[in-house]
């Protein structure tokens, strides 16, 4: 019962933060704030993947989405409309109180996780073997045998995207 309610609490926390930051993505006036909120939302979804017992996908999510895609977004925002976007403030008026609230919440979360980590059993999330090598081994075996052809097609698509992005973004002069 204890592990269950802990898992449910974590699910609620991650889900609420994911939905709230997704709303910020749509509502925020500046694309920079949207990008940062999208980053928060994607990290929460990565945490949900861990709750669902697929840590590999969580790592991929962090690497590809938060690492590559969001940096690409921020880079293009910087290239395109940095002057307009950088001037818009996220909160108008006094910002000290909201900042303090967020800091206190994050600090409390860190403290709870640090002090109570030995009470959370690692196998509580996603059933047995979720964090072991078994699932990952099966996953990669299936990926490289039954899904080998889609895997190769994906690599070709990535190559085409790479070349296409370079061709599109190149200036006409050279």
């Amino acid at each position, binding site marked *: 019962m204890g592990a269950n309610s802990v898992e*449910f609490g974590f699910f609620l926390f991650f889900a609420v933060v994911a939905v709230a930051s997704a709303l910020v993505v749509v509502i925020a006036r500046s694309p920079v704030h*949207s990008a940062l909120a999208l980053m928060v939302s994607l990290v929460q979804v990565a945490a*949900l993947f861990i709750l*669902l017992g697929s840590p590999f996908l969580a790592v991929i999510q962090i690497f590809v989405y938060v690492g590559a895609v969001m940096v690409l977004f921020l880079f*293009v925002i910087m290239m395109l*409309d940095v002057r307009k976007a950088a001037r818009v403030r996220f909160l108008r008026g006094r910002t000290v109180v909201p900042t303090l609230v967020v800091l206190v919440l994050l600090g409390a979360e860190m403290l709870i996780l640090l002090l109570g980590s030995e009470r959370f059993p690692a196998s509580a999330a996603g059933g047995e073997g979720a964090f072991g090598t078994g699932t990952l081994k099966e996953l990669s075996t*299936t*990926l490289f045998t039954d899904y080998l052809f889609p895997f190769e097609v994906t690599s070709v698509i990535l190559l085409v995207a790479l070349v296409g992005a370079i061709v599109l973004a190149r200036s006409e002069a050279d």
Partner: protein
Amino acid sequence: MVPLSMYLALGAALFIIGVAGVLLRRNVLIVLMSLELMLNSVNVNLVAFSSYLGDFRGQIVAIFVIAITASEVAIALGILVALMRNKATLDVVDVTIMKG
């Protein structure tokens, strides 16, 4: 365990927020980010079903979705940079040069 319906509800909520962003916002960058949100909600559903049915093929499809999303973003932002060079606007309403 958290019931499967909660994960599906979360995926649906994220998807609806993404659709709202695509339909309501006029900034191209935010429309693209809302697309990311929609694709990500699909991944939530895929991984939730994969976990609850004990079948990791859902995770494999999610890996493919992530890879295709990365290439989509690269191409879309390349088109955006090329577009900005010709027409200095980020507003989707102003971009009608491909109209027949």
